[in-house]
């Protein structure tokens, strides 16, 4: 804390309005601090990496054992697909948070924009997971399929899925890289000569110099890529849910479902950002960047997404409940009230009731721990929810026909499933920790820009923040 706050305190003045002000640093201080943390590799970091790598390796082994067992039985692959769905829902959606907040020009987004974009890199892992998941799909002939028997060679529909996923992965990497360019140039200029990291930064920054033209392109390009990313994310969620969830269940016709999954993605993506902020703040030494302002502000969209998620669920539920056709009754049994009731009600509790009950209280929103606890609950709920929506359809015996004749029993995960779920989620976190050493986890230039645009000044008898928004 510095400047105005101190001045006022020294003068013994009434500090009204200064209580919530974030600490004010200079651009240079931010740069030195973040680059310093970016370069340092602590034993704690190495230990975490080790554990994550081990878990991921176990997951990979489990996956190989599964693959050797063959791809004919879809129920074997339920948990694998659910993990893929969860990673897409939680991690791959995180860049939407930064893209969306960039559109609204919210200043509080600045410190967290980067970490959200780093999470998007998980799309690369999902891209790899799509290949075996496609192999596990039954023949599309005789069942509903998002490509509608498009006249093409057998493998071709799968190609569309791969192209969509690859485009998303490409876009997220481009989004991250583009917004990291100024910070990579910063690392190139400030790391000691001869260090490998400096050479990497130098290579990745591609000789960027912050000219007027560069900043213009960065600003415009960032918005454009962000918009593209959001639209592609909608498409990918539609494909995933149509191929591995809706398409597996005869007569399950639910036009809401892809939108429901997108909303789940927004909710879980926001939650991932909150939990990551908490981790970086508590164990990474970044408490100056992730303050009350960030947690308080992000709690509101998290609450809104939780409500909207419930709304979307209810809208689709009431349509089936009221319709009461035999296949709809079976569908409700399969998804909500039958053997999968416990997972369903747990996710309802964790993803809707708990966030609602907590977040209507401003003191809880306006804290560090409150939003973190809610976000962690949301993530757990999202995992359970994705297991429900993917494992139940994949566990059906018969994916063909006109009606859902039988309600599938609950499928417990076996040891391989658990290893796969834990392993691949660890893999996503491992990817984050690795990339966080490739690009700084806090966007130095964005925070610096914010410092120039937010001032504290006296307004008659109190202090206020003056917030500028450049167009």
């Amino acid at each position, binding site marked *: 804390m510095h400047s105005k706050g101190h001045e006022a305190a020294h003068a013994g003045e009434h500090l009204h*309005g200064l209580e919530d002000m974030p600490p004010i640093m200079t651009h240079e201080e931010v740069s030195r601090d973040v680059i310093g943390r970016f370069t340092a590799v602590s034993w704690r970091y190495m230990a975490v990496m080790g554990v994550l790598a081990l878990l991921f390796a176990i997951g990979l082994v489990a996956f190989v054992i599964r693959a050797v067992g063959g791809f004919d039985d879809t129920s074997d692959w339920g948990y694998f697909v659910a993990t893929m769905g969860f990673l897409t829902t939680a991690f791959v959606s995180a860049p939407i948070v930064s893209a969306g907040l960039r*559109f*609204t020009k919210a200043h509080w987004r600045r410190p967290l924009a980067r970490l959200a974009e780093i999470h998007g890199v998980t799309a690369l892992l999902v891209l790899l997971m799509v290949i075996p998941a496609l192999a596990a799909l039954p023949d599309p002939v005789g069942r*509903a399929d*998002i490509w*509608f028997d498009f006249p093409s060679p057998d493998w071709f529909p799968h190609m569309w899925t791969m192209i969509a996923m690859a485009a998303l992965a490409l876009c997220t990497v481009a989004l991250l890289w583009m917004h990291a360019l100024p910070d990579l140039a910063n690392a190139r200029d400030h790391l000691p000569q001869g260090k490998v990291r400096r050479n990497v930064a130098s290579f990745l920054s591609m000789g960027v110099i912050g000219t007027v033209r560069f900043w213009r392109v960065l600003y415009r390009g960032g918005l454009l890529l962000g918009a593209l990313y959001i*639209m592609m994310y*909608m498409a990918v969620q*539609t494909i995933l849910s149509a191929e591995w969830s*809706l398409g597996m269940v005869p*007569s399950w*016709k*639910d*036009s*809401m*479902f*892809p*939108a429901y999954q*997108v909303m789940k993605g927004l909710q879980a993506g926001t939650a991932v950002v909150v939990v990551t902020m908490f981790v970086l703040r508590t164990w990474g030494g970044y408490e100056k960047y992730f303050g009350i302002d960030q947690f308080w502000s992000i709690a*509101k969209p998290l609450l809104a997404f939780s*409500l909207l998620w419930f*709304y*979307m669920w209810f*809208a*689709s539920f*009431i*349509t*089936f409940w*009221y*319709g009461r*056709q035999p296949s709809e009754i079976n569908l409700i049994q399969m998804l909500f009230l039958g053997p999968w009731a416990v997972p369903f009600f747990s996710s309802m509790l964790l993803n809707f009731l708990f966030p609602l009950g907590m977040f209507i209280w401003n003191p809880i929103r306006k804290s560090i721990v409150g939003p973190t606890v809610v976000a962690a609950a949301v993530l757990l709920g999202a995992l359970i929810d994705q297991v429900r929506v993917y494992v139940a359809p994949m566990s059906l015996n018969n994916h063909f026909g*006109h009606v859902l004749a039988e309600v599938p029993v609950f499928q417990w995960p076996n040891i391989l499933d658990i290893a796969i779920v834990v392993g691949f989620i660890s893999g996503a976190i491992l990817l984050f920790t690795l990339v966080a050493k490739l690009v700084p986890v806090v966007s130095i230039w964005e925070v610096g820009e914010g410092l*120039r*645009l*937010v*001032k504290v000044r006296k*307004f008659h008898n109190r202090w*206020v*923040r*003056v*917030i*500028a*928004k*450049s167009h």
Partner: protein
Amino acid sequence: MYYRRTVSDAQINRELLDVVFRTPVWWVVIVSILGLLVAVFMSTFGLLMNQGLGLTGLNRPVFWGFLITNFIFWVGISHAGVMISAILRLSQAEWRRPMVRAAETMTVFSLMTALLMPVMHAGRPWRIFYWVFPYDFARGIWPDVRSPLVWDPTAIITYLTSSSLFVFTALIPDFAVIRDRATGWRKAIYGALAMNWRGTPQQWKLQGIAGILLSALILPVFVSVHSIVSWDFGVSLVPGWHVSVFAPYFVIGAVLSGVSAVLTLMILMRFLFKLQNYIWEEHIDALGRLLIVVAIGWHFLFWLDIVFALWTAESVETTYWQLRLLTPPWSWLFLLFYVFSFVIPTSLWLFRKVRRSFVWMFWISILVNIGMFLERLIIIVPPLMNKDAFTFQFGTYRPSIVELIIVGGTFALVAFLLLMFGKFFPLIPLWEEKEGQRLVETVKVGNVEVPAMIKE
């Protein structure tokens, strides 16, 4: 959104209350014409009550036609008002100030108008009461709360009450301004409405909280209202209506048409009430950018509706989509709707020049709403024209002149009510404008003064 000129509080009072204290000739002329149209509308309503629904074009198998389409249309328009003002208040967007009240008022009036439609459509409106309100203790016949036709009035009454209270609460400080300036009977009336408001810090603080808290409470209501309206269709088993995505699809469609209507209204207000100092290019630009996002979201759900109608390739669904997409006149109505409410607007809104032109934005916003009216018609009527099992052809529907007069009359009614409101109350909240003026600042970065706002 930053202020271009410094205006004193007194000047804001003078300019924005001009029409309240002085009746312009244009107002008298327009209100008289609209009044005449409203009279025609009400007479037609009377005629319809007297003669019965045979005057409409409704006949087997199509029993929901223009009146219900118009109901959905006006409920849709009513959505933007509160949505715009609530979301912008919650996000503390500075550019909300000149548009919140007009938008909220439009909500109230279009909702009242919408409410008239099912009343007319019922044929014998007095009979609505016993299936909506639980009052019939004598005979022991009670409303069936399991019917979506009971959810509907519940939701709309809630929404109408809430949005009226919302408008009223924010008007109190402005009543005080008029009270302080008026004389005679006017002073007495506005004084009573202002309830001796004085503008203490306590009262202003509560006004601020009211804006946020009521917004937070009304937003979920707003989402529920159009969802419930959509369930009138969605929970039935009619192919083409029994679609789970209907609720959010209706809501976001309502936002698209409603925000466009706010745009139309803002531009008209600027022109009629001479509000050039308060409504600028930046405001319609911001609305335009918001509309791009809304239109894309709407398109996603629209697309899901089509994709999943064809999903299981059942003939009941595919034949009816053939009717919608490939059989005239529905096919060209569909084309018009899609081009008017999505293709033309979204592609033009991408250009900054268009977004900042009042003329362009005015006509585009009108186009969107023509398109959205057609969209509702296409959603409602074709699924009811179900093919007869033995004649293998679709039923038909053509609106009668009575229905056309009623639909046209609703536009006159809403415009009439808005102009009446604008005569007696300021359409732009005075105190919000004054507050906005006060909070303008600049931050100097190098050689530029970047426009800024003071935030608490």
